[in-house]
């Protein structure tokens, strides 16, 4: 998929996020939007997956460690064909498969249930270890938040992954700089994130989370990296794509009202229009 198509797809994924959260009247748009390009790249370009056969054994695995950004994952999966895009409006409602946080029991194609922060890297490392033990070719991806890495278990898992030389594992840090209570470096600074992962024997790549050339190059580099896991620190803008949400802490876990939803969709339609002309 070329960059233009990826951008167009990511923009559709963003519309799905906003629509899902708006209909749910709850959820986490900020961190879903910041990671939308990463989700799109993983589900449309990087990962060996098949929506028609979501449990195929040799598939690449994805663990959404920052499970509250499920709207982003759901929207990418829906657009990729795992389930109808129209399902996105059922997010968080009674009887919906789209639980507030991802559940593998509900949605075929979700490789691990998550939501409680700090646990995903361990699980992804376990999957990667199984692949290493079985000499299976699949790769494992996990997305963590920059606030989430305040959880100690992340570093237990990083130590383990580095020690075991899990070169089939990629940890992506969505570095949008904001958590519920404020900027991450004001709440309890996780910086320097790159030096920390390097110290745990990761190959570390710093990129702009919204630049598909950089994303493509980073994942390619991760594939070529042998003997150590890769950490991609993706510097992102929380709420990316929706003017009034960008860089705003308040949009971590708030749904837009009718008026705000209209503006958000208008913003994203504008982007669609520009991309169509590109």
């Amino acid at each position, binding site marked *: 998929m070329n960059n233009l198509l990826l951008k167009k797809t990511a923009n559709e994924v963003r519309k799905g996020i906003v629509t899902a959260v708006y209909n749910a009247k709850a959820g986490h748009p900020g961190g879903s939007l910041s990671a939308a390009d990463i989700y799109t790249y993983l589900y449309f370009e990087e990962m060996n997956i098949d929506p028609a056969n979501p449990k195929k054994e040799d598939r690449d695995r994805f663990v959404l460690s920052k499970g509250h950004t499920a709207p982003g994952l759901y929207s990418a999966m829906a657009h990729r064909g795992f389930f109808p895009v129209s399902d996105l409006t059922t997010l968080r409602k009674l009887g919906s498969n789209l639980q507030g946080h991802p559940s593998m029991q509900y949605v075929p194609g979700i490789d691990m249930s998550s939501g*409680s922060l700090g646990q995903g890297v*361990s*699980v992804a*490392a376990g*999957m*990667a270890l199984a*692949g290493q033990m079985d000499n299976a070719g699949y790769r494992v991806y996990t997305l963590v938040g920059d606030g989430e890495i305040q959880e*100690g278990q992340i570093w237990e898992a990083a*130590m383990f992954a580095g020690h075991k030389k899990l070169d089939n594992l990629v940890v992506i840090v969505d570095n949008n700089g904001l958590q519920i209570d404020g900027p991450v470096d004001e709440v309890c600074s996780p910086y320097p994130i790159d030096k920390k992962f390097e110290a745990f024997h990761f190959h570390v790549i710093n990129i702009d989370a919204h630049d598909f050339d950089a994303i493509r190059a980073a994942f390619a580099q991760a594939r070529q990296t042998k003997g150590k896991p890769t950490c991609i620190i993706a510097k992102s803008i929380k709420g990316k794509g929706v003017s009034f949400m960008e860089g705003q802490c308040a949009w971590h876990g708030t749904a837009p009202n009718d008026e705000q939803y209209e503006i958000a969709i208008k913003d994203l339609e504008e982007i669609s229009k520009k991309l169509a002309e590109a």
Partner: protein
Amino acid sequence: MSDKKIATRESYGNALVELGAKYENVVVLDADLAAATKTGVFKKAYPERHINCGIAECNMTGIAAGLSTCGKIPFISSFAMFAAGRNFEQVRNSIGYPRLNVKIGATHAGITVGEDGASHQCNEDIALMRVIPGMVVMNPADDIEAKAAVHAAAAYEGPVYLRFGRAACPVINDRPEYHFEIGKGEVLLTGSDVTIVATGICVGAALSAAEELKAEGISAEVINICTIKPLDEKLIIESARKTGRVVTAEEHSIIGGLGSAVCETLAESGVSAPVYRIGIRDVYGESGSAAALVEKYRLDAKGLYEQVKEFLSK
């Protein structure tokens, strides 16, 4: 009851070696306690399938979850304090909620940890694990039952918590007709005056106590409950209906463990039978030898015998 004594943690390690031969996808994880959890024998036999995670139990739990989604049958091993205590939320969310096929082998449960004292004596693990939806909780009474439980856990698809002790305990199930099934209790001794429902090390003590009671003309029925969840409710209700009085005995807090499970079952059964719960009475343990502690906390044969007598005289 034979004179042979063996700690169920030894049985755990030995059973894992048997499993290693039987299932090529069984893997064993440790958090720097392989020497104590007795998984060292598995490590020796199958080094490529033993994973030491270092002193990081929560990570070990997640690693096991990930391994299980890729077809492995992981047994995670640590002391009960960490396997169930420190790990509670990881077990609940990364194993229980997605209903993953992970087995938790928790050794050094209860006060028989002994000299290490209260920080390591977990009397709360059954309560913690029992409340997790879908979790099978087993607390074997001796070597034979422990090995059978480990084999049954491997054959069962889903999360299982296995509880083992540090101290050697008598072998009580050494008989040809012995048969183990998850969720099935067993009447080891039939009686008519009182039912003693026991688990773990208290089963052997209950049998000895029943003998002493018999000498005084008190007929005690002794039920061994290895699987605390799902509980063999039918067996317990039938026995309570017959004897009319029930004593539970466990090396665990009287809150949330076997005693609670039996009370819950009887309260909803319609059978009217008073219950006395023998166990750790909402206190922390302390340092001492295992033998001295079971005596002080009245979990040995004498303690059980006396408490049953006190209960019956009320």
